[in-house]
Each structure stands twice: as C-alpha cells, then as structure tokens.
C-alpha cells in the first residue's frame, strides 16, 4: 500500500478546510494548521484542500516544486485567468487577477499569499461581514502594493479574496472586508 502524507491526505485536508472556513468567516482571525501541513508550507495545505482538475491555478512566483504543482492537478492558467493564484507577498503584483462578473461574482480569484509571519509586522484594521466591530491583522513581509491593488480590484460584489499564509498558519481577507489603513 502506498503511504500518503499530509498535506495530501483527505482527513488532514478536512481539518485544514474547517479551519480555513472559520478563518474565512471571521476575517483577520489566525488559524494554526501545522499538524496537517506535513512539514510543507501552509499555503500548499490550503491549495491542496481546494484544488483539483476542475479548477485552474497559477503559481505566479514559481513557489511550488513541479511535483507539488502536478499533485494539485489543477489546470495551469495565466494569473489573469486562474481561479487560484499563489504569490509571494513580498513582491508587488505584476498582473491583474480575474475579478468575476456581475452574473458570476464567484469567479473572482482566490489569491494565496505566502508571507513571512502572521501576528507580526504592520497592522491593518479590518471591518465588514464576519467582524463584530473591528479586527486587526498583522502581516510581516507584505508589500504594501497588495493593499492598493486590492482596493482597485475589489468593487463589491466583484473582487478577489486573500488568504495569507505563513509557514504554519493562515488568515483570510475576503472581498467584503474593508481594510482601514495601518494602525500604530
């Protein structure tokens, strides 16, 4: 029998998704998924629980090994067309993602951003659905151009959804969230 390790095991992917769902429903909250990453980066565990041959994927900054990319099984696509984009948070985006259409806003891309660390670095205030009053999210190693680009890309209900991942944790900022500038 062939042994399959995390993050490719379906039981681990279930665990990752449930934490992703909770973090997505409450923007800014940080979820630890280390036990189901199997030593891989959390961003790969997130992609592994969502991607398959029915969707498209762009590894914008060539962060994955060819083996991992092929195991995701998602159709390769340019950044402007992919449903899922993996990118390095330290570099500013050099592309414009799919934002969906009024008839199909769900086609707006999910952008998984690999950052240095969550809970450290510049703090942004978040407001919107999923947040009682205000939430704060600290991401270190994030190029500020991402927030400006996001402001251009998101015009509700069109837009893109961010998943920030450091080595073992994730936090989400879906398109409904208002990012209220940096806080000291």
């Amino acid at each position, binding site marked *: 029998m062939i042994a399959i390790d995390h993050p490719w095991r379906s*039981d681990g992917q279930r665990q990752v998704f449930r934490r*992703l769902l909770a973090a997505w429903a409450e923007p800014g909250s940080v979820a630890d998924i280390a036990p189901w990453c199997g030593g891989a980066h959390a961003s790969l565990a997130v992609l592994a629980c*969502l991607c398959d041959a029915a969707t498209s994927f762009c590894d914008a900054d060539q962060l994955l090994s060819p083996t991992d990319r092929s195991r995701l099984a998602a159709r390769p696509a340019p950044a402007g067309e992919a449903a899922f984009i993996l990118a390095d948070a330290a570099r500013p985006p050099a592309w414009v993602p799919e934002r969906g259409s009024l008839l199909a806003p769900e086609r707006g891309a999910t952008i998984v951003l690999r950052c240095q660390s969550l809970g450290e670095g510049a703090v942004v205030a978040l407001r919107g659905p999923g947040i009682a009053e205000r939430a704060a999210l600290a991401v270190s190693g994030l190029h500020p151009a991402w927030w400006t680009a996001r402001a251009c890309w998101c015009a509700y209900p069109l837009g893109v959804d961010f998943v920030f991942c450091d080595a073992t944790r994730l936090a989400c900022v879906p398109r409904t969230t208002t990012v209220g500038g940096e806080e000291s």
Partner: protein
Amino acid sequence: MAADDFGFLDAYAVREIRRALLKALAVPGYQVPYASREMPIARGFGTGGLQLSLSVLLPGDRIKVIDQGADDSVNAVNLRRFIVAACPGVQPVTRTAEATVIQTRHRIPERPLMPGQLMIYQVPYPDPLQIVEPREAERRRMHAEGDYARLWVKLYEDVVRFREVALSNRYPARVHGRYIIDPSPIPRWDLPKLHRSAVPHLFGAGREKKIYAVPPHTAVEPLAFADVPFEVERFRDEQGRRRRCARCQADDTYLDQIPLPGGGSRWQCNDQDACDERLGYPDAR
C-alpha cells in the same frame, strides 16, 4: 488521490463544495451554483444540507439534526442516522448547547447560537425571485443588477390586499445591503436571528444546485416598507394576551398550534430542545 472514506462524498464533490462555500461567504447572499451530487435520499428531502454537513464535518463533531423544531421526526432521524453512519467519530446530539454543527429544516433553535457552532440549512427554493419570475436566467440577471422591483411590487400588492405581507415563512431579506435571499422556510420569528448572528449560516439547495451563506456579524434586513414594518408572529389569544407553551409555560418561543379532538387547540413550543431545557430535561436518562 486516496479515496475519501469519511463523509460519503467523493473527493471531487467535497472540494467543489468547499470552493462554493468559501465564495458563498465572500459574496453573502449570492447563490453559488454547484454540481449537486446524487445522494441516497431523494432530492427535495434535504440533500443540499446533507452535502454541506458531509463536507464540513470532522471526527469529534457533535451533530444535531432538526426538522421543524423536532429531533425525532422522520426526516431528521433518517438524516442523522445516515450522517453518523457515514462519518465515524461524529456524535449525534439533540441539545442545542452541545452541538458543534446543526443541520436544520425550517427552524433556527431558540437558544442563542454560540461562536464555534455552524448552522446548515436544507433549502427547497433558494431564490426569493422565484415567486415573481419563473426563468432562472432572468432571475440571475435580476440579482446581478440588484433589480428587485418586482419583488417589492409583490410585497406592496400583499399590503394593499391583506394589509400585511402575506408570507408566513421564506420571508425575503437583504444581506449586507446587496443580495436578497430566501432564508429557507424558517418562520418570520427566526429571521431576526440571522441579523448580526454569532455564527456562519450555510444554505444548501440540493435539487436547485445552489449554495449560499450568511457570515457571522452580517446585516440581514427583512424587506419592509417605512409605514408597514416587518413583524414576527405574535401568538395572541382572543383577549390579546401572549399565549404560553402548555408544557413549559414559555411565552417567548415560537409556538405550534395542536388541534384537540372535540375542538379547541393546545399551544406548545415548536423547538423541542428549548422546551425540554426549560423543564430541566425531564426525560433524560
């Protein structure tokens, strides 16, 4: 890829539902289309809610399944049995406070939901515009453009004819100021519970192949006119007093009217667990 031996659904189905759920939460109230799978129960009997539950459950979860407010009606019992058989390690419960996932048909529990819980709805008709427009393509356009004029006209006609909006359940509500949802056939009584709720509400319409959601802390406003406000059921008797549950004496719950032989009727809590909890769980072993 390893076969998914937990949760009945195959890996492709689970991933598609996961993707749809995330986008449904990102665009609150928008109906995300998905390829609803064949389930071992007939479409229209809760397959949408069932697919959502099977996609999110984990070993160690405690699931409560209700049909109306009851844990022991045929639909709830069958769904619960199937879920527990398909998801080893998931424990069936009836107490709202103990549940981590609540799958429901037609009610939201009376007990306030707590952060960490998930509400999953079985939805027969996901589109509030269905009562005014039979063509789905046209309804999609209307949602896309926020064109809800005909729905407002229908509500207005009700007010003219009956002096109130003649919808006892499935009362349309606007989510996050944009999309109007059919909150599934919950009574009006339950609609305010969706407004700025502490938990995510996930709606699955299996036959109609749609998934939509209301995230926590999100505005859900019932459609109403400035001079004809939205009202919940009042449960007044002939003297104008609020009726009480004949069993637990509660006067702040949604009541069922049970006709008695020989005329007259008895009023009782619809939410069985809330009624039992107030009585201190008299039948608990």
